[in-house]
């Protein structure tokens, strides 16, 4: 049942991605009146998600951002999504857990930041999220602390790229494992949704799954939230947070169908993702007594190594995220901070060829020839820790978007640690591919996943929110998304964002119920 905008609801949640959706479900389940405002559309996967890359570019956040620095970050398809479900609509659904020492980078290396919480405070949330989403994974995952419960489902079938990564790694003594992936290897019953079907191996996870086998938020935490009475308002773009005399936020202003609307509320949960969360706060000059909003932008070193093989691989088949190795989590010969993981990657043709254009500068007959090998290519990529630096930040530019709001400008340059990590990984991945029999090997340097801008910490001078995600400046404002990570972690972020979202909700409910 829809709430009225004049009604004082308990909470407004801004954004319905990995950080917003789990929290929304938790608050609704506790009996709170909650409204989610989501800038993007509410899609119908069967009708709206054709198996076609171009047709699915609508899932990306396509409002222009300005990319500056020595390693300008691509946004759009590379970094951010929109719609009910946020970026999880098009994530690859790799769901590794962080390891305990990921949260102690400063303690262990003397640089970067520690998290204000330790692993034990999120471990049981990892467990809960994995079971609820129906994560598929191996019976015995070789890295990190032992798990309390096995993964909900057995591993997904390993596609060609995965088999080749296993083959090459084995030859040179690197351990691999089927990855944990939030796509269902078998049908799964889910509270609030009913039965979801198993993955059809259609290799299309970097866009929307048309059968609901991939655990994006629109088929998991959002229906659960609705089941418990939450209201979702799609196509509502939040522009302002209004403070009352007591310094708390009393109203959220948003645009819907060209009209300005206002929702009164007791609490606000800002879950708009790294860039938009910081942008909203900067636009409204809020929660920034530390001066840290927009600072510490991080992005995982995400170097990819591609090779051509004699075998038929057909990179469009099978779950794109199949095989993982965390052997480089703390590599013995590391000359950089933290570590990285290795993942096999499947790829769709337009993405692949466009990377060849940008990464190798190929065109003309050279490009056509390299593209004709598409069915024989396989890739490995890394995701590694990234330090927060003063030179990496976002600001509001002078240029305006279609709503008349300043576009964000994001500065990013890899530091020495990230460069060294990439060099190390370049060598390791080339060794794997060479052992697997690759030809025409090439590297695509990139950074993936934007993180930071509203870091959490214990000190209000250096952090934007506390360990519970609560703003130091505005007590009824919470942040739950990629922006609060104090360090980047050496794993894909979504599972940790969801686990933290549940923790934030529980800490909030403990404090205010």
């Amino acid at each position: 049942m829809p709430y009225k905008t004049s009604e004082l609801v308990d909470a407004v949640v801004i954004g319905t991605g990995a950080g917003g959706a789990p929290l929304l479900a938790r608050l609704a389940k506790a009996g709170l009146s909650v409204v989610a405002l989501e800038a993007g559309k509410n899609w119908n996967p069967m009708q709206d998600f054709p198996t076609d890359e171009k047709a699915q570019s609508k899932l990306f956040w396509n409002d222009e951002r300005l990319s500056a620095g020595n390693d300008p970050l691509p946004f759009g398809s590379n970094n951010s999504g929109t719609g009910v479900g946020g970026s999880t609509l098009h994530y690859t659904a790799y769901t590794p857990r962080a390891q305990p020492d990921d949260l102690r980078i400063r303690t262990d290396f003397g640089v970067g930041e520690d998290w204000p919480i330790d692993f034990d405070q999120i471990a049981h949330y990892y467990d809960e999220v994995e079971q609820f989403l129906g994560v598929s994974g191996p019976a015995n995952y070789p890295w990190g602390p032992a798990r309390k419960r096995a993964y909900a489902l057995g591993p997904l079938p390993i596609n060609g790229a995965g088999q080749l990564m296993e083959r090459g790694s084995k030859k040179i003594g690197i351990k691999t494992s089927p990855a944990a992936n939030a796509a269902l290897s078998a049908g799964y019953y889910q509270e609030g949704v009913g039965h979801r079907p198993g993955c059809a191996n259609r290799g299309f996870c970097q866009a929307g799954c048309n059968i609901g086998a991939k655990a994006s938020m629109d088929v998991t935490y959002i229906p659960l939230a609705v089941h418990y009475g939450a209201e979702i308002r799609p196509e509502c773009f939040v522009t302002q947070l209004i403070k009352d005399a007591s310094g708390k936020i009393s109203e959220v202003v948003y645009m819907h169908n060209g009209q300005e609307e206002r929702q009164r509320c007791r609490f606000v949960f800002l879950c708009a993702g790294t860039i938009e969360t910081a942008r909203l706060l900067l636009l409204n000059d809020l929660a920034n007594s530390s001066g840290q909003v927009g600072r510490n932008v991080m992005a995982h070193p995400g170097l990819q190594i591609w090779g051509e093989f004699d075998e038929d691989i057909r990179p469009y088949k099978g779950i794109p995220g199949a095989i993982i190795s965390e052997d480089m989590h703390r590599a013995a010969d590391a000359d950089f901070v933290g570590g990285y993981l290795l993942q096999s990657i499947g790829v769709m043709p337009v993405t692949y060829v466009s990377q060849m254009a940008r990464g190798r500068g190929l065109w003309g007959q050279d490009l056509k020839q390299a593209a004709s090998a598409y069915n024989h290519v396989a890739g490995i990529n890394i995701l590694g820790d990234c330090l927060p630096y003063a030179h990496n930040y976002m600001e509001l530019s002078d240029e305006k978007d279609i709503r008349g709001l300043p576009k964000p400008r994001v500065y990013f340059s890899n530091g020495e640690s990230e460069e060294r990590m990439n060099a190390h990984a370049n060598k390791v991945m080339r060794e794997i591919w060479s052992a697997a029999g690759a030809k025409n090997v090439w590297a695509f340097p990139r950074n993936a996943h934007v993180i930071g801008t509203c870091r959490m910490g214990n000190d209000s001078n250096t952090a934007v929110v506390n360990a519970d995600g609560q703003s130091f400046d505005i007590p009824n404002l919470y942040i739950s998304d990629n922006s609060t990570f104090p360090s980047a972690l050496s794993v894909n972020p979504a599972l940790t964002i969801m686990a933290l979202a549940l923790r934030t909700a529980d800490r909030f409910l403990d404090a205010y119920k």
Partner: protein
Amino acid sequence: MTIKYPVGTVRDLLTTDLVTEATRQALVKRLNTPPRQPTFFSTDEFTLLQAVCDRLVPQGETDQPIPVADGIDERLSGSETNGWRYDTMPTDGDAYKLGLKGIDESAQALFQQPFLSLTGGEQDQVLKAIQLMEAPGETWQTLPADRFFEELLAEAVENYYSHPIAQEEIGYVGMADTPTWKRVGLDQLEDREPRAVQINE
């Protein structure tokens, strides 16, 4: 290694229930879109852009040319972006207009003729010089030549390889996914996957 696949594979699949209705609609529409009269570019600019795209993604002798430049004009006419741009670049539309002017300037400086009058090989020399930031011309004093080239190239190849006929060329049939893929390992093909017809060298 040159790999060739039979023609017509994707077009044949589009008539079957191996693709979802949504997929069919998206691809058939792309296949059947008539050539475009430019609304963002002038006729001259558009002709030049088409010639440049032909060098970047050569098409050979196909029965149905793939409209690469059309997609660029359509996007710019609708003021759509891909979500980001290099901070050192002007807006996409300005970058394209300036860059096209720059291409002709470089052609004049190198060969004393407009780009359209050059042979294919000469056109490639102009483009290569731009990619390497070695091209003469006033425009490249203000517009970063390498970034312009990268953006143009990426968009051209994305438009080209989104087209069903280009996908036939590289043996991609990922759109035929309704029955689920059961044979996903190395060298495991389903009946509906095209086999390479000729591998030489």
